[in-house]
């Protein structure tokens, strides 16, 4: 008979501490769906997605029930559409986004990622068309998510792309102004994006990937917080150990479930992404873990060190538990999706500058941050450039998902609903970066030696 404490601990994690598998994401290659005729290409895309993921939702739900561990989202990631649509003669790819949305709706998944372009060095014709289609695509679809990789450690930062993305964010905010500029919540700008990330909005299925595969994103900030409550006042050696062990357990659960889904669907298991991803619910917050370590409020001095320890310990526990850890693995620090973070902003404990510092040690970047609607495109671009610099120099993924909420200013709040939550609008620096962003060109790849 299995140790009863193990059983009670697992049940407690789900019941009390909101442990869940955040997402099972099916990656589908669309490389064979390119066609000179856009209409034909879209038909192939629709047919392929709906055929490959036909049984996804049903199977995931069955496994969820057998194990008694909730799996919150079922998602799909596809090959970056700029690569596929580039073969067609179309001058806008909005129709591609619409067909992806239809396919997502047909198979009953929550989100579909891959309306993406990789432009860290330069643009192809397809990349340019795709990027300019983003605002409308995000305004007319519900489930489609978009990402653009504008920098990486090997080639530097494409500042032309950084400049354009400022404008694209502004335009997306305007087109979705009725819903607090919700479109921007479905758009991520990356440095060092990864090809196997199951989390949205940045998921896409890279060209080096399988025909189809399954990746899983495991969450569980509440579980880590609860475990740390048991070691109050103990040293950081103990804290790190507790986080590692907890991360191990939740990773193992995720791996077991995804392998079962993979076996039933006969689709290879790709990677486990162990990311502490908060939700706006009480008891599911990363900020509260940092506070549990002894900070009065998330954002005060010491927050970066606390987050560094958390992020590292989570990775270590996850890597021990599964041979195939990938994606973004670490701790996410979105503002609107984290109840503790929202409160920290409201109390004035955390600013955009501190968040930027935290992104040096967290798993991704500036995430789900609402700023005033009148923030200029060049300021948004400059924020992206700063994040890219952090990622490129430190060899890590960084990203920006920022929402200049149309018509709103400091002191107001944007409401996105569901897992996306709500965000108090944060101040940006009032001085201009216009002339800096106007230069364009490329910031060269950094030297990765002589580290200091």
């Amino acid at each position: 008979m299995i140790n009863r404490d193990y059983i009670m601990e697992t049940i407690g994690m789900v019941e009390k501490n909101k442990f869940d598998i955040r997402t099972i994401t099916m990656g589908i290659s669309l490389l064979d769906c390119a066609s000179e005729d856009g209409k034909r290409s879209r038909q192939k895309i629709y047919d392929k997605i709906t055929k490959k993921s036909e049984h996804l939702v049903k199977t995931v739900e069955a496994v969820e029930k057998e194990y008694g561990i909730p799996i919150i989202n079922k998602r799909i990631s596809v090959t970056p559409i700029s690569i596929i649509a580039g073969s067609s003669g179309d001058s806008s790819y909005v129709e591609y986004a619409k067909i992806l949305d239809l396919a997502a709706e047909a198979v009953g998944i929550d989100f579909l990622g891959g309306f993406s372009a990789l432009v860290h060095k330069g643009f192809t014709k397809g990349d340019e068309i795709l990027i300019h289609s983003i605002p409308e695509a995000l305004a007319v679809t519900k489930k489609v998510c978009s990402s653009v990789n504008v920098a990486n450690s090997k080639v530097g930062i494409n500042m032309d792309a950084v400049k354009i993305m400022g404008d694209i964010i502004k335009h997306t905010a305007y087109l979705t102004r009725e819903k607090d500029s919700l479109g921007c919540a479905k758009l991520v700008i990356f440095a060092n994006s990864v090809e196997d990330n199951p989390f949205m909005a940045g998921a896409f299925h890279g060209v080096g990937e399988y025909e189809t595969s399954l990746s899983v994103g495991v969450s569980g900030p509440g579980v880590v917080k609860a475990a740390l409550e048991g070691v109050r006042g103990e040293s950081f050696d103990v804290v790190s150990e507790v986080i590692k062990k907890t991360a191990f357990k939740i990773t193992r659960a995720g791996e077991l479930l995804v392998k079962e889904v993979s076996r039933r669907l006969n689709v290879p298991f790709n990677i486990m992404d162990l990311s502490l991803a908060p939700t706006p619910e009480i008891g599911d917050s990363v900020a509260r873990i940092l506070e549990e370590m002894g900070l009065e409020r998330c954002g005060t001095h010491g927050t970066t060190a606390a987050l560094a320890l958390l992020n590292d310990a989570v990775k270590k526990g996850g890597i021990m538990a599964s041979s195939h850890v990938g994606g973004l693995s670490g701790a996410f620090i979105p503002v609107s999706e984290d109840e503790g973070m929202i409160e920290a902003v409201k109390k004035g404990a955390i600013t955009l500058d501190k968040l930027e510092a935290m992104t040096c040690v967290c798993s991704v970047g500036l995430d789900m941050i609402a700023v005033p609607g009148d923030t200029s495109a060049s300021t948004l671009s400059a924020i992206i450039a700063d994040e890219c610099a952090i990622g490129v120099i430190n060899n890590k993924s960084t990203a920006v998902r920022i929402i200049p909420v149309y018509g709103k200013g400091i002191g107001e709040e944007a409401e996105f609903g569901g897992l996306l939550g709500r965000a108090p609008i944060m101040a940006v620096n009032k001085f201009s970066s216009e002339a800096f962003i106007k230069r364009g060109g490329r910031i060269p790849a950094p030297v990765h030696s002589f580290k200091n």
Partner: protein
Amino acid sequence: MNFKNLRAFELAFLYEGGFMKAIVTIIGEDKVGIIARTSSVLSEANVNILDINQTVMREYFTMIMLVDIQKMNVSIDKLNEQLNEAGKDLGLSIRVQREDIFKKMHEI
């Protein structure tokens, strides 16, 4: 359940390693008839009880049953529903989960 894509060793693992076993947990206030009601649901589903372990901690009754579901005549989903229903009548929570999750999460 579709076994046609399984390799022999995977099948062996499933039988030996526990897929055919599940854990039923009952948590709530102690009262008359908990075991009777639960085991009647299990027996109707042709589920064999292999081991029972129970304690009462601070008025809270917790019982863990190891059960064999190899010859079960309903789906695990359906069994869960029936147990939930019994749990509701008794005012406690009853659930069934595959056994391997507990091993996998807590053992290296």
